[in-house]
Every structure is written in C-alpha cells, then in structure tokens.
C-alpha cells in the first residue's frame, strides 16, 4: 500500500492577492488582476500588448533589501509563497534530511539574464554582477527555498513550460511514496512580465490584444477569447506523508491522491487537437488516485483563453470522464489571475485544494457568450461543492506537449 500524501500548508502571491486568504476571497468573488502596464518600456519598444496581470504585492517589498538583491523576481515570489505555506503548515520540529523541495518555473530568471545582457552591452563585462548566474538559473527558486527551509533531501526543478507547477506536485508525490522524503515543499514561480517575453509570446499569437479593456481580456471559453494574459507570482503547497501529518496533529486540507503526467509527442506548441495526451494524463491521474470518473465533482481547468487551447481540454475531459463530464463544475481561474506560466499549476492547485476543503468553488469571470463547442458547466458565480466524499482535479498543459493532472480528495 503506497504512502498517502496530504496537503498541510498553502502559500500564494498572485495578481489577485499577496497571500492565500486574499487570493482565495477574491477568487470566490471574481476579480480581474489585469491592468495596463505603466512601465516606460511598453512605449519604448512599442509593444503590441500593453497589459498584464501584475502580482498585487511586490515581493521586494516583503523581503529584506539584501535578500531581494540576491534573488531574481521569480525566486523572490517563490520564497514569499513558500514561507507562507511553511508557516501555515505549523511544522516546527522536523528531520531536515527528510524534507525535500520540488519547486518549478517555466522560464527561470529571465529578468536577471536580460538585465545582465543589457549591462554587458552598455557597460562592459566588468559590470556584469557576480550573482548573475545563481540568479538566472532555473533551479534558483528551488535552491533558495531549500536554503530558506533547510531542506536537505534534494531540491528539484521540474521544467515543462506551463505544466511545470503541477508537475512539481507530481514529483512531490513520488518522493514521498518512494520514501525519499516525509515532507516536500512543492510549487511554482514565474516573473516574466518583461518586454522580451511579451514580444515573443505575442509573436506566436498567444497573447490577448485587448489593450483597451485589460480586465475583460482573459475570457476562457468565451467566443470572443483572443489569447492569454501574462501573469506573475507563485504558489506553494506543503506535501506531507499522511502518517507524518497525523503524528503531529496537523490540520489537513486534502489528500493529494494521485497524478498523471504525459507528453503529446505531437507538436511543439499546438495541443493535440483530439486532446489525446491530456486524456491519457487524466486517466492516468484517476487510476493513480484509485478514483472513478464519477467521483469527480470539480475541475480547475488549464483554460488559458486562447482560441486553440480551450477546446482540446474539453475534448479530453469528455474522453476521460465520459458522460459524467456534464455533472462536473469547472472553474477557469486564469480569467482572474491571468496565466502565471510555470506558477499557474501551483496557484491553481492552491485554489483547488481550498475548494475541496471549504466546499466552495472559485469563479470564472468574463464568460459572456460560451463557445457552443465547449458545453462545460462553468462556475460563473459563487457555488458550493456537495458534502460527502469528493474528488477534484487540476489540469495543466505546457508548450512542448506536456500534460500534468493532479487529483485531490477530501479527508
């Protein structure tokens, strides 16, 4: 019998709140984190997209000046969210050799990398900061979290674009089941609201261009959706072996019952139109969790609001859940937070865990005309989850054909 994995701590810093309570209250209410960017570089580069979902709290205002100086913004977000989750877990005495980290990012320290390049060109090699390499490396967030917590059972960085955060949780399950750790700090962080990634994502026609109306730009499942809205921030979840959590009398939010990770092997950016890879991930996750399709009551969908991405996820849900898909209430919270790329799976897992724990679902905003090809039951106003035993899913998919699904069950 595999060890059961439970969730005992949550942390988040997002475009709709600087911590978990604020993010959660706003997620239930339905607010937009999207704003017109007031950075001078928007005009300097004549960027075709002029808005994004900025994190509501700047991490360098939460951390000390010296801490912030030595961390890329992505790592700053990671440390802020991980500290909240750690405090929330209430863990005090722990064997640090049995504490691991699986903290993801999609892109890594892109601000540091590009600032250093600017410095090299403008001021020469002598002015490139000695901290540049540790700040830009994609394992920076995991390493900083590991140092911060004294986690010595390995610090891992799954990188699978926008599936990264969810894949980190899958890795956390495996570490605990394999007996390599008793507690794993999992999560994802991203800070890519920089002119280059905005230009690059726009070049592939992935971003919404609704510059005159940012708050209504992220609109998953709506017929007028025209791309995703870039977000930033981090989510963190403390995974713990059930017996470890019970022994210390911990508050348990939910069981992380299983995961499924697959690859489309189809196209580098376009999702398999039949959603075959996502279907296999969903089926694998349910199997891993020893759950039936009919147990599922709620899905936090990947649903980024791109014209091509939202539909295959529906196709996959239908294939994996059969006719039960009509009974499942779906939240597309990127409508509020924007797309936090490698952090999205972690932030959305925090929301899914709270949905199971509080029996309330976060809402989907900006759905005015639902795409008739995606006839899902979308949660657009506050709605409760039923009592009794329930299962909820969080889906994440990333460029490269990465599919990751995690399964939560009430305890």
């Amino acid at each position, binding site marked *: 019998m595999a060890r059961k994995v439970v969730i005992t701590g949550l942390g988040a810093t997002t475009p709709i709140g600087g911590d978990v309570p604020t993010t959660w209250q706003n997620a239930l209410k339905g607010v937009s984190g999207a704003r017109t960017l007031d950075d001078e570089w928007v005009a300097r580069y004549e960027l075709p997209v002029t808005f994004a979902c900025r994190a509501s709290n700047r991490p360098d205002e939460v951390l000390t*000046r*010296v801490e912030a*100086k030595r961390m890329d913004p992505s790592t700053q977000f990671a440390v802020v969210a991980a500290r909240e989750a750690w405090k929330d877990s209430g863990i005090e005495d722990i064997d640090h050799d049995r504490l691991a980290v699986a903290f993801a990012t999609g892109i890594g320290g892109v601000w540091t990398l590009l600032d250093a390049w600017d410095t090299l060109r403008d001021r020469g090699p*002598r*002015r490139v*900061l*000695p*901290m540049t390499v540790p700040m830009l490396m994609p394992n920076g967030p995991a390493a900083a979290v590991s140092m911060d917590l004294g986690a010595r059972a390995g610090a891992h960085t799954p990188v699978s674009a926008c599936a990264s955060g969810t894949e980190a949780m899958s890795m956390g399950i495996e570490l605990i089941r394999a007996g390599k750790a008793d507690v794993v700090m999992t999560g994802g962080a991203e800070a890519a609201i920089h002119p280059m990634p905005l230009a690059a994502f726009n070049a592939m026609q992935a971003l919404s261009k609704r510059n005159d109306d940012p708050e209504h730009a992220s609109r998953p499942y709506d017929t007028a959706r025209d791309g995703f809205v870039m977000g930033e921030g981090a989510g963190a979840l403390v995974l713990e072996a059930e017996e470890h959590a019970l022994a210390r009398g911990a508050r348990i939010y939910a069981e992380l019952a299983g995961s499924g990770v697959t690859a489309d092997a189809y196209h580098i950016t376009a999702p398999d139109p039949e959603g075959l890879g996502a279907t296999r991930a969903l089926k694998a996750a349910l199997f891993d969790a020893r759950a039936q399709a009919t147990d599922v009551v709620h899905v936090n969908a990947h649903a980024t609001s791109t014209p091509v991405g939202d539909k295959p996820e529906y196709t996959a849900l239908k294939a994996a859940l059969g006719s039960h898909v009509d009974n499942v209430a779906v939240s597309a919270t990127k409508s509020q937070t924007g797309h936090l790329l490698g952090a999205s799976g972690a932030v959305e897992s925090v929301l899914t865990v709270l949905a199971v724990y509080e029996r309330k679902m976060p809402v989907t905003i900006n759905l005015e005309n639902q795409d008739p090809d995606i006839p899902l039951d979308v949660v657009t106003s506050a709605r409760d989850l039923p009592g009794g035993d329930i299962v909820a899913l969080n889906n994440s998919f990333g460029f490269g054909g990465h599919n990751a699904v995690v399964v939560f069950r009430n305890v």
Partner: protein
Amino acid sequence: MASNEEILAGLAEIVNEETGLAPEAVELDKSFTDDLDIDSISMMTIVVNAEEKFGVRIPDEEVKNLKTVGDAVDFIAKAQA
C-alpha cells in the same frame, strides 16, 4: 582624490548596500571574510562597485590580498595617487 576617511566611509556604504551590515561595523581592522562574513561573490560585487565609486581598477588577482577593510582602503588610496 579621496582621503582615507572618505574611502572608508564610501566602502562602508557599498558594504552596507550589498550585505545589510551597519556602516559603522565596517572598520579598518575587520577581515572581510572572518569578521564581516562576506562571501567571494559579495566581495566581487563590492570590488566592482568600489572601482566605479573611486575611479580605480582593482585587478582580480589583487582581490585575494585585500583581507581587511584597511587593505582595501590602502589599495584604493594608492591606486588613486
């Protein structure tokens, strides 16, 4: 041309910016590594900032000889002369 006192004050400012140490803790007889707990990466940042502030060049191979704050003040004063 800065006086030794001005160089010390300027260095203390740079060290404070990089490490958060109080400027008054940066005294001439203090060792960068043993007393001020400054690692090699922070030391290189301090060196480059000092070069810019005082308009001098501190070669990489010279940095290992700057054991104390006083060593750095002396080096900068000589380099400026």
